[in-house]
């Protein structure tokens, strides 16, 4: 399968730097799987990649309906890329509904591959098409390939002894095969995967492989698709890579942290989109000593995690926005008893149940302030799928070192998106120190603090002689006894704040992308990283005076944040919310941050950030001019 490009000499090969493909079909059509296979194959081929799955909200809405459309977009490239791409260069639409919901995102001149068989009246009606888009001028601006994928697939599988319905379920592999030919991908990664996945059913293995190959050969042979494209491997940093999704990386980071800390992990959770996959991942890791508890609700889950932490484990809970709201009362208990706790919050569209399958960054203020009383804790936010691994490690490190809850703010886009990830060398990772005090000749004082971290000791049940009581009432400094003393309460309130502030000593300085001073500084956090980086880099190449920083530590902030902010005339904060980080920065540094908000359940496009920066740059010039003319 490696000499395929020679097979049909009539067809020409073009070289491209990067391509954005979107697979779209019915929920039942296996589009997530197809996209995932293309991703893996491209990754192994050495391209840089970035992906964006787009699930329907329904489990399986009626076949052919608009809400039932499932899509998967990926960007693969011979150079470094950081987003799944603004607009697809290729759309594969398996039915009219998929065409309807996705075509508006596709740029003019792009390729649109259509499963012609699906454009029957019933499906057109389900997709609310009044006339057949293949026959009117809906697609006039695109390079359309109408291919009877269902029929071709059925024909290819005619000899296999499975039902027609089962055969039809292979058509996504037929489509994938076509795309493999178009973009010169080998079939072996997918073939291996099919063999493993359907190991229990030989006929299904055979059918899927056959469909894949048939698609490939059809594209190669038939006169429909005339060009195929080469995308060279990207020059990634040398090392060993794998493709990784954010939730997977998060789980991996946590298991790694537990191993490094030689302290078992207890993950207590209640399923919720888009956090559930972390529970699923961790529940497979029992041989790492990981215990996963599926609790009766979110409050029970954080409760169990706190209980486990009291017992000396790394206590973890994970959820999404509405679940974080429910956990807020118990989170405060962890704050006042000063136990380590990691709370994963995989953000989704809000408020309320909102848009469960869509991404958003709108829980930052909830994470900061969503509790009664003055109740500071640490907040971290990974910025790419792979960074979830690193920040999960950081979360555990900070929690156990400072005896504090840490909120880890990921989001739906990171959770389900993927990228090539350089596998870290486990041996070279720093160990995580966990100390449980033992009886000494001195009286044990549960709230006697470490001078540098202000952390209290983590004495655990079972330790002879260190019996002590903790609880949610205000505690007396040093002894931890219940205290209603006014001065003590003020002191403890300040100590709790100072302890969180002390974490600053462990937070690396921010690196500025670009010049250390200039007209515009773009400040991002979390999953907007890729779009911001790409936009800023592009504008820098055009000579614009713009730099960016990206916050992965949101409470406390890195030490050098203030001075960087002060080195630019204007600050722009793009966020997938109504301006939550901007509000905090404005309050803390009294800087007139400008907001660039997108609240659509969709990640930023590079072009949207670019436009935002350009607008601010031009108004900055005006300001400059006004200033000069005064």
């Amino acid at each position, binding site marked *: 399968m490696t000499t395929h490009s020679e097979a049909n000499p009539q067809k020409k090969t073009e070289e491209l730097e990067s391509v954005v493909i979107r697979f779209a079909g019915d929920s039942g059509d296996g589009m997530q799987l197809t996209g995932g296979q293309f991703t893996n194959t491209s990754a192994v081929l050495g391209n840089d990649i970035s992906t964006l799955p787009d699930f329907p909200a329904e489990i399986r809405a009626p076949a052919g309906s608009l809400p039932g459309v499932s899509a998967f977009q990926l960007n693969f490239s011979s150079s470094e890329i950081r987003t799944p791409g603004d607009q697809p260069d290729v759309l594969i639409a398996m039915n009219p509904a998929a065409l309807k919901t996705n075509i508006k995102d596709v740029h003019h001149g792009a390729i649109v591959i259509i499963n012609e068989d699906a454009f029957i009246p019933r499906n057109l009606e389900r997709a609310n098409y009044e006339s057949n888009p293949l026959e009117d001028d809906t697609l006039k601006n695109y390079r359309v390939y109408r291919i009877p994928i269902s029929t071709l697939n059925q024909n290819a599988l005619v000899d296999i002894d499975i039902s027609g319905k089962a055969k039809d379920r292979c058509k996504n592999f037929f489509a994938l095969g076509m795309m493999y030919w178009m973009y010169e991908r080998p079939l072996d990664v997918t073939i291996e995967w099919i063999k493993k996945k359907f190991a229990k059913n030989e006929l299904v293995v055979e059918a899927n492989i056959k469909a894949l190959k048939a698609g490939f050969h059809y594209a190669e042979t038939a006169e429909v698709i005339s060009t195929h494209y080469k995308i060279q491997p990207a020059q990634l940093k040398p090392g060993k890579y794998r493709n990784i999704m954010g939730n997977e990386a998060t789980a991996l980071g946590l298991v*790694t942290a537990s191993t490094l800390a030689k302290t078992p992990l207890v993950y207590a959770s209640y399923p919720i989109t888009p956090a559930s996959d972390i529970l699923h991942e961790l529940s497979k890791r029992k041989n790492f000593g990981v215990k996963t508890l599926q609790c*009766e609700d979110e409050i029970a889950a954080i409760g169990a*995690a706190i209980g486990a932490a009291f017992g000396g484990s790394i206590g973890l809970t994970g959820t999404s926005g509405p679940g974080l709201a429910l956990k807020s009362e118990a989170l405060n208990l962890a704050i006042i008893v000063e136990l380590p706790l990691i709370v994963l919050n995989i953000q989704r569209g809000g408020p309320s149940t909102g848009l469960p399958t869509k991404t958003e960054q709108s829980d930052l203020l909830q994470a900061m302030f969503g509790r009664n009383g003055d109740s500071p804790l640490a907040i971290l936010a990974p910025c790419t799928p792979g960074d979830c691994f690193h920040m999960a490690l950081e979360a555990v490190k900070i929690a156990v070192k400072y005896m504090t809850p840490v909120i880890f703010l990921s989001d739906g886009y990171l959770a389900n998106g993927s990228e090539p990830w350089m596998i870290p060398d486990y041996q070279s990772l720093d160990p995580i120190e966990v100390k449980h005090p033992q009886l000494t000749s001195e009286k044990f004082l549960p709230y006697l603090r470490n001078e540098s971290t202000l952390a209290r000791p983590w004495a655990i049940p079972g330790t002879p002689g260190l019996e002590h009581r903790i609880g949610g009432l205000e505690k007396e400094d040093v002894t931890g006894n219940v205290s209603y003393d006014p001065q003590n309460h003020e002191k403890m309130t300040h100590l709790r704040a100072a302890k969180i502030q002390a974490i600053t000593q462990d937070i690396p300085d921010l690196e500025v992308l670009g010049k250390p001073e200039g007209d515009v500084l773009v400040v991002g956090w979390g999953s907007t990283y890729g779009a911001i980086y790409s936009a800023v880099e592009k504008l820098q190449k055009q000579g614009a005076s713009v730099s960016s920083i990206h916050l992965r530590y949101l409470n406390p902030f890195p030490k050098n944040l203030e001075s960087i902010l002060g080195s630019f005339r204007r600050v722009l904060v793009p966020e997938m919310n109504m301006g939550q980080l901007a509000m905090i920065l404005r309050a803390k540094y009294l800087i007139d941050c400008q907001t660039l908000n997108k609240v659509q359940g969709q990640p930023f496009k590079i072009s949207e950030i670019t436009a935002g920066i350009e607008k601010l740059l031009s108004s900055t010039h005006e300001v400059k001019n006004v200033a000069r003319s005064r």
Partner: protein
Amino acid sequence: MSLEVVKNEKLTRKDFTSDQDVRWCPGCGDYAILATLQNVLPQLGIPREKYAFISGIGCSSRFPYYMETYGFHTIHGRAPAIATGLKAHRPDLSVWVITGDGDALSIGGNHLIHALRRNVDLKIILFNNRIYGLTKGQYSPTSEYGKKTKSTPYGSVDYPLNPTALALAAEATFVARTHDTDIKHMTEVLKAAGEHKGSAFVEIYQNCVIFNDNAFTQVSDKQTRDDLSIKLADGKPLIFGKELNKGIKLNQGSMEVVSFEADSPPDDLMVHHATKDDSVYAHLLARMEEIPGLPVPLGVFRAIQKSTYDEMVQAQVQDAIEKTGPGDMEKLLNSGDTWIVENKA
């Protein structure tokens, strides 16, 4: 990490008494329960440092502060959940949950039934005073219908919950009832709970002198208690009365009281068996408190054996390690499709 039962005969009540001043109202039934438990723990032969007391919020939930053990006064209603996490991680500990009728049955009802149905090895001691003590006297889910309190000046319209019936519906493996004025009985019941492996649910009738005084004269009044309550003894027929001349019979699935000459009970009386596998018999006992004319049962309603949640969670970890070997971090990090990018140079 399984529960090491180390005989440690030297421990006494004093070893379980913390240095904190006890702050319940003078005359509160909580004092007697505290003293009794401080007496019972040394008898269980578990080292002191292996005890953990987890409570919610309420007068009763201040309990852990007074125990010289590991203790955690958590938040309202959540103690069973927090204790579940602790026990799941640390099957070696003896974990006790101290809770009130409001804490356990109002805000915390769901965590209670889920801890019980999972058979987490917790000793859940519910101080039932049929009132919210700490918030100064509102009615609780166990208050009688029509109760006049600060929040129900016209009388409550909620029918009460029956704690033992609820525990049985959740298939608790140990269900018992005792009361704060009978130290000996309380001692027996708490000891049995402490020795039970699995979720042990104990309802203690506890007198709140301030907001619901004399709620339990049925079991505490020396004059009448023998006729109004019945003590359960395993393998023994259900006999009660000052003169031990009354018994309980099952008639078409309904219970009724029969009187007889003392010392010659009829032989169709119900016989107490706490170890019956199905919960129907224990359910009969649980309903007795509601049926006029029947005495209130005291003692162990049910005590059966079933694998516990915490040991099964632990066993899955051990199994996985045995079957696939202890986790190999390098291997896990490198799993899935991988590829190598070579140094160009």
